[in-house]
């Protein structure tokens, strides 16, 4: 049986959106897929050695809040300075209580499973990001390199 391939583009840098790429990539690897993730724009935050990912209710009407608060809380309140920190703390606690892996753990599992992670060089330059802030074992490349793998992939996801 020829090995199947999964190509993912990760474009988002918030705590909630960090999950899909790492969950799918680690699971695909366990199922025998060869997997690559191309991190571009805000997705590059997911490659930082020290992750500081947050989740915000601002502009996110679908986000459930404790006690169904989202139904009556004015949008303006979700913009208050403390909201992001409070919601991030609550989300992390809830995930821990429910046995959901941390992003650090999932990322490590991806690395163990030899998921290839590629940082978009253009974005690194654009935001003047320092390579020393990123985890080891990743590659730096551009769109053409992504297509070399994605063109042969069985599944290609933009997240």
């Amino acid at each position, binding site marked *: *049986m020829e090995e199947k391939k999964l190509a993912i583009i990760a474009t988002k840098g918030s705590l909630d959106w960090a999950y899909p790429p790492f*969950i799918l990539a*680690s*699971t695909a690897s*366990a*199922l*025998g897929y060869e997997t690559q993730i191309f991190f571009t724009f805000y997705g590059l935050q997911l490659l930082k050695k020290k992750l500081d990912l947050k989740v915000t209710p601002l502009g996110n009407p679908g986000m459930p809040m404790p006690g169904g608060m989202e139904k009556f809380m004015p949008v303006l309140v979700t913009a208050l300075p403390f909201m992001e920190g409070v919601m991030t703390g609550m989300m992390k606690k809830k995930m821990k209580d*429910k*046995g*959901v*892996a941390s992003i650090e753990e999932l990322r490590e*599992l991806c690395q163990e499973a030899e998921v290839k992670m590629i940082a978009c060089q253009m974005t690194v330059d654009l935001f003047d990001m320092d390579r020393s802030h990123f985890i080891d074992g990743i590659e730096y490349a551009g769109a053409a390199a992504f297509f070399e793998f994605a063109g042969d992939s069985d599944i290609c996801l933009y997240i």
Partner: protein
Amino acid sequence: MADFDQELDASGLNCPLPILRAKKTLSGMAAGQILHIIATDPGSVKDFDAFAKQTGNELLESKEEGGKFHFLIKKA
């Protein structure tokens, strides 16, 4: 529950951890050996079925007992 060679308790873990732990444990086992997995994630019932179909490892048994899910997987 039939005989097994190794046991993995994935109780309290949520998707995709039971599958990832099972895969890791299986890779340290010999072909033909049987792994017994215990999980509490209701999603693991469908997931282990799909895992077995896609990896060629055989799902010998899948059942719920005492509020937990039990799986027997034979390594291919």
